[in-house]
C-alpha cells in the first residue's frame, strides 16, 4: 500500500487551506500536516461554531478528496455507522427463488447469492474504507454517541479494516484522512484520544477573525469588520451562557451589510444583538455591561 502523500509541509497546508477559503493558524496547519504524515486521525475540540466541521470540508476541497460524513447521535449503532444487510431485498430474493423452484433444491444457490455486494448497504465508515480515491472521513460530534460506538471506532481507525462475516475482511486500499469533532459534552475515552492527534480550535485572535470576516463577507468595509470583531471579543469576556462564535460574527457582518448599517454604534448593536446572542439573560447582561440603551 503506497503511502498517499497528503501534504508536503505545514506551510503547504496553510496555502492549500487558504485556497479553499479556510484561514488556518500554525497550530492547525501543523496538526493537519502531521495527520497526513503520520496517518493518524485528528480529534478536533473547541466551542461550537469555531469552524471544526468547516476544517474537514476545507481539507477535502484542498486535496480534491471526497468528503464522507458520519453524523453521530445518541443511539447510533453499527448498522448505521458501518454496514447493514438489506434484508427486505433478501426476503424478496428468497421468495422469488422459492416461487420459481418449488422443489427447493435452489436454496444452496440462493444462500450464496443473498450475501453479496448487491444486498449490502454500506454506511459511512465502510464507504470511506472501500473508496479507492482520496477520501476525507468526517466523524462529526463524536461525543454524542455511546461508549459502544467509540469502541467500534477504535477498531476501525486502528486497522482501517472491517470484517464482515459473510464476505470476509475489507481492508482500506487507501487510508482516508480522518477528522473527529467533539463539543466535549462528555470526555471521550482515553483509548480513543491516545490514537488521535489532538487539536483544540479556540476563538481566533482578533487579526485572524477580522481576516475571516473580510474573506467570508466580501462587501464589508474593513473598519466596520474590525469594529465588529472587537465587539465580539468584548462579548466573549462577559461570562455569557453562550459566547458568540465565529459563525455568528460572520452572520452579524452579513446582517449589518444587508441592513446597510455602516457604523456599529450603540443603537445598531442593540438592534442586531439577536444575531449573536441567543439567550434572554445574555441580552440583559450585554446591555448592562456595554451600556446599551434599554430595548424598546
Amino acid at each position: 500500500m503506497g503511502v498517499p502523500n497528503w501534504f508536503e509541509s505545514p506551510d503547504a497546508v496553510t496555502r492549500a487551506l487558504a485556497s479553499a477559503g479556510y484561514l488556518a493558524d500554525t497550530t492547525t496547519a501543523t496538526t493537519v500536516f502531521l495527520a497526513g504524515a503520520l496517518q493518524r486521525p485528528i480529534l478536533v475540540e473547541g466551542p461550537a461554531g469555531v469552524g471544526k466541521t468547516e476544517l474537514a470540508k476545507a481539507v477535502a476541497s484542498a486535496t480534491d478528496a471526497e468528503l464522507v460524513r458520519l453524523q453521530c447521535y445518541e443511539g447510533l449503532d453499527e448498522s448505521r455507522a458501518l454496514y447493514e444487510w438489506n434484508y427486505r431485498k433478501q426476503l424478496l430474493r428468497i421468495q422469488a427463488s422459492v416461487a420459481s423452484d418449488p422443489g427447493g433444491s435452489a436454496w444452496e444457490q440462493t444462500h450464496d447469492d443473498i450475501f453479496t455486494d448487491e444486498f449490502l448497504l454500506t454506511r459511512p465508515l465502510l464507504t470511506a474504507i472501500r473508496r479507492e480515491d482520496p477520501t476525507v472521513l468526517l466523524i462529526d460530534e463524536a461525543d454524542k454517541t455511546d461508549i459502544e460506538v467509540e469502541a467500534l471506532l477504535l477498531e476501525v481507525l486502528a486497522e482501517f479494516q472491517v470484517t464482515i462475516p459473510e464476505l470476509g475482511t475489507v481492508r482500506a486500499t487507501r487510508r482516508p484522512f480522518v477528522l473527529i469533532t467533539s463539543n466535549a459534552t462528555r470526555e471521550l475515552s482515553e483509548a480513543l484520544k491516545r490514537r488521535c492527534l489532538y487539536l483544540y480550535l479556540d476563538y481566533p485572535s482578533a487579526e485572524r477573525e477580522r481576516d475571516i470576516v473580510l474573506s467570508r463577507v466580501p462587501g464589508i468595509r474593513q473598519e466596520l469588520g474590525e469594529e465588529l470583531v472587537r465587539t465580539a471579543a468584548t462579548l466573549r469576556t462577559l461570562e455569557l451562557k453562550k459566547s458568540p462564535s465565529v459563525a455568528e460574527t460572520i452572520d452579524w457582518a452579513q446582517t449589518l451589510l444587508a441592513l446597510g448599517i455602516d457604523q456599529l454604534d450603540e443603537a445598531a448593536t442593540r438592534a442586531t444583538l439577536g444575531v449573536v446572542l441567543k439567550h434572554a439573560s445574555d441580552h440583559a447582561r450585554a446591555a448592562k455591561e456595554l451600556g446599551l440603551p434599554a430595548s424598546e
Partner: protein
Amino acid sequence: MSDLFEHHIAFVGALREAGLTVSIAEGLDAAEAITTVHLLDREQLRAAYAATLMKRQMHRATFDSLFDLYFPAVGAAAPSRQNETVRAAPAPWEVDDPERLAIREALREYLLTGDDQLAQQLARDAMAGFGAVPGTGSGGRNGPSWSPMTVLDRVSPRTLMASVLEQFLRGQDQGGLAEQTARTTIESRLRRFEDLVDADARRRLAEQSNLEDVARTGIRPSLDNVSFLNASRPELAALRREIQPLARRLAARLAIQQRRGRRGPLDFRHTIRASLQTGGVPMQTVHRPKRPVKTDLVIICDISESVTSFAHFTLSLVYALREQFSRVRAFAFVDELDEITRFFAPGSDVVESVTRLVTEANVTWLMGRTDYGRAFELFERRYPDAIGRRTSLLILGDARSNYGNVGIPNLERMVAKARHAYWLNPERRQIWDTGDSEASKVGKVIEMIECRNLAQLSEFVKSLA
C-alpha cells in the same frame, strides 16, 4: 541528534511529572512527529508536541510553560543578550528612573498597536531592569533571583490604562460601547504582557539552575486542580468561565445515564408499528420511557470570608444543573441564616445572582463570624419542613466555628430526616482538625467529603444527581 533525543525524553518526563498522562505510544508518536516538521520553526515544533502529547485543553497552560522552559525562543536562548545590563531594581519610590520611563513609553506604544514582537522584547528589558532580586537566587546558585511581581509592581503597566484608553478613543464619546471594546482590547494586551514577563522570569531561572527544578516548582497546576481557596484572580475568572461548560457536560452525561437501563411499560402501538418491517413478526419490543426520579436538594452554605469563593462555585454549578433536580432550596449563613433561593429564579443569570446574594442576603447578626451552632438551630426552627424523605442535604463549609458550638445534636436530627446528607469541605484533608476545625466531630454525624477543586466538585455533583 542524540542530544535532541535526550531532551525529548526529559521534556516528556517533565510533562508526566506535571500531571499530564503521556503514554509510551504517545511519546513515540511525538518523536516521529518532530522528525517531520521544521525543528527550527518553534511554533511548528510546539504544535507537533501539543498535537501528540496534550489531549486535554485544561492542560494547555501547563504544557505551554513547560515547552517554553525546555525549548526557549531562539532570540532569548543566547544566555541573556550580550549588551543587556542587569542591575539591582531601583527602589519603589524612584518613579522618575529613566529606564522605567523609557519602558513605559514603549509599553504604551505596544498597548496601542498590539505588536507582539515589541511586547516580547519589552518583557525581557523590563525583567533585566527591574526583576533582579538580590540574594540567594534559586537554590543558592549563582546570580540573582527573578521576580515577575517586582517587575509589574515597579513598571506598573496597569496605570497606563487610562491614558492609553483616551488615545485609543481619540474623540469618540466615552462611557459607551466604544470605550468598552477598547478596554477589552487593551486589557487582553496587558494580560499578554504580564504572561510574557512571567515566562521570562522562568526562563532566566532555568538558565541559572536546573531545568527539572524549575519545572517542578515554577509551574502552576492545571485549572481543574487549582484549589478554590488559594486561586489567583485570573484563575478565579477562568474557573468561573469553566462552570457553564462543565454543567452542560454533567447534564448531558446524567441525561444519558437516566435514559439508559430504564425501561417503562410496553409501548404496544410502537411495537406493532415496528413489527411491520419484519412482516408482522414483533422482533423487537418498544418501551415507554420511565419517569425519571429526581432528587430534592437542600443546600446550606457557609459564606463567610474564608470559604466564600468555594460556596460561589458550588452554588453556580448546582444552579446551572437545576433541571437535574426536582427542587433546589438554598440557605446561606455566617451567624445568621437566610434563605437565598429567591436569588436564583429560573432564567436569571447565575453569575449575577451570586453577586447579588453577597450584597443583599441577610446573613450576619452580631459578630459576623461563622457560627455553625446558631445557623443549624435557626434552620431547624424556621424551616422545619425543608428536609423531607426525598431530600439530599448538602452542607458547604470548613467546619471552623471559631471555637464555638457546632450544633451536633441539631445536625444529627437534620441528617436523620434526609435521604442522603453530605458535607463538602474545601480544605485539604491534612489540615482538618487543626486549629478550630471540628471536622472529625462533624464527620461522625455526616459524611464529610474533601472538595478542593473543580475536578473533585464535578465528581461529587455527578454522584449526587
